[in-house]
């Protein structure tokens, strides 16, 4: 089911949480709403679910205006950050809840068969009789997903689904959710503040800031072509170097890079740690190494430029560098954004 948000606005007592957001999610797409806390991403998700009413604008499910349809009739599956499993019901009873309270009456045997099928889907066949307090966080979130899928929702909405889990479980569940999505093909919208999660999982990433969409696109598009300094910084570690643009070139202390479409004047040059390298000869930005951090996949070098700026970059594990070395930071690639 295609979802369309048309100039949606939400104001809470003290501030405008969502300012005029328009967004289209194609049928079967898996879309991430990514943004820092307070960017309005959860509010948007809750409005799509019907857990929050919008103060302006329309939300369409397919061609139907769903703006005023209450949550219980909207046909969405919602997965909460802290699972929101019913603690007094077993795993199987949790999953069956939606089918039992539904206006559509189902045979008891049909419900049981569907519960068994969902337990298989989320790989929890043997835990149907446990209570939520008796299973792990990752298992709880899988139960929550099974419970949401049990009512055959047109749309699946997940609010920071893996936020409360530790890193390894999170990575596993991510891959697994992607598999389930390919299997079921259900239109899915999820909220996260973890850029890695959004990029790993989503077909398309929508980046939000202060209640507005600042950029959207495939993970490749937003990573390779961030449209603003905010997106650049938010998507990952970035070094910031003061620069000046003159005649289509950006000059930063000792490094020059060609830019297009920028007016002359002060600018900032953004480079990922992997975009920089270390060399003993110039040309480059003269710097001295202050610390070397060894990591499983390489060495992270912290260096200080003469002007006092700090830079971070990665070199291969074999490279002999140590604190106190002097040399030059060279630029493989960078993004330049005008200041202001």
């Amino acid at each position, binding site marked *: 089911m295609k979802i369309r948000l048309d100039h949606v606005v939400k104001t809470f007592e003290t501030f405008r949480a969502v300012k005029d957001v328009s967004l289209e999610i194609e049928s079967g797409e898996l879309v991430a709403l990514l943004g820092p806390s307070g960017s309005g991403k959860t509010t948007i998700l809750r409005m799509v*679910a*019907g*857990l929050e009413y919008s103060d302006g604008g329309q939300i369409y499910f397919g061609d139907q205006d769903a703006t005023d349809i*209450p*949550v*219980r*009739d*909207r046909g*969405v*599956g*919602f997965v*909460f950050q*802290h699972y*929101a*499993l*019913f*603690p*007094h*019901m077993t795993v199987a009873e949790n999953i069956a*809840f*939606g089918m*039992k*309270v*539904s*206006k559509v009456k189902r045979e008891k045997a049909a419900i049981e068969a569907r519960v068994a099928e969902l337990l298989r889907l989320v790989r929890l066949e043997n835990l149907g009789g*446990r*209570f*939520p*307090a*008796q299973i792990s966080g990752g298992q709880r979130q899988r139960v*929550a997903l099974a*419970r*949401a899928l*049990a*009512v055959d929702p047109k749309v699946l909405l997940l609010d920071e689904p893996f936020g409360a889990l530790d890193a390894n479980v999170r990575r596993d569940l991510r891959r697994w959710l992607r598999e389930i999505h390919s299997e079921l093909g259900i239109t899915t919208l999820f909220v996260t503040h973890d850029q890695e999660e959004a990029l790993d999982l989503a077909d398309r990433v929508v980046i939000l800031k202060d209640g507005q969409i600042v950029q959207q696109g495939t993970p490749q598009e937003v990573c390779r072509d961030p449209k603003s300094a905010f997106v650049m910084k938010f998507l990952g570690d970035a070094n910031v170097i003061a620069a000046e643009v003159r005649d289509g070139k950006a000059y930063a202390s000792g490094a020059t890079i060609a830019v297009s479409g920028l007016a002359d004047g002060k600018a900032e040059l953004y480079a990922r740690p992997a975009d920089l390298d270390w060399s003993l000869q110039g040309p480059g930005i003269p710097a001295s190494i202050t610390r070397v951090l060894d990591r499983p996949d390489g060495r992270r070098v912290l260096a200080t430029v003469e002007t006092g700026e700090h830079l971070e970059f990665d070199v291969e594990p074999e490279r002999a560098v140590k604190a106190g070395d002097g040399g030059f930071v060279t630029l493989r690639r960078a993004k330049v954004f005008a200041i202001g």
Partner: protein
Amino acid sequence: MRRNVLPGLRLSLGVTLFYVGLIVVLPIAALVFKAASLGPEDYWRIVSSARALASYRVTVLAALGATLFNLFFGLALAWVLVRYRFPGWRLVDAMVDLPFALPTAVAGISLTALFTANGWFGSILADFGIKVAYTPLGIMIAMCFTSLPFIVRTVQPVLEDLDPALEEAAQSLGGSDFAIFRKVILPLLTPALLAGVSLSFARCLGEFGAIIFIAGNQPMSTEITALLIFIRLEEYDYPAAAAIASVLLITALVMLALTNWMQSRALRYTVRS
């Protein structure tokens, strides 16, 4: 004893056990001892006399009625206090504790004044042919008044801590308001409701001050057990008073044990495997 990091266990345990022994166990032991000074036949004759039986009946029935009423009304009151903020909310919240603070005799006299045939409520009810003062109904109303806070105050914090996401999840799964209340909220409140019910019922059984003014105290019809004990005491018949009191004690203990058992059953789901 297992070694404990926190200091002061022995001292605090000693002091509290001594206190509990002095204030709770000793008087009860004295009561049992006094009642036991009767032979089994005398004991049975006293506790099963027609007048005593009539007093048990009216006390227990009125206590059950009052507790049942408070179960519904107390739940509704707790619900309103937790879910809504309205002008005067703070006042209503404070009023709930009034039955605790007010001397029960004062409550009894006020209720009697209201419900006698020419009182504000009594005169209106009399038009419908309902008599409250000096009937078992009056006893029940006095019990309702004094035991109301128990249910409200046990349910209120649990209701406040209920995760709103549970109701939202149930809504998103298509549950109607009634289905959500019955299948999600009520089961989660059950342990607190049971705790409130057992406290409320125990209080009703033992209530004295608020009731004797409104009850009329006619032996065989509106004489409560607590009053019968008091009468026996005034007659210096201590063993008989203790014997009848022991029946109240046993009833209260059985009720507490029963609700505790039901509570632990209702809380099975919190036990980790």
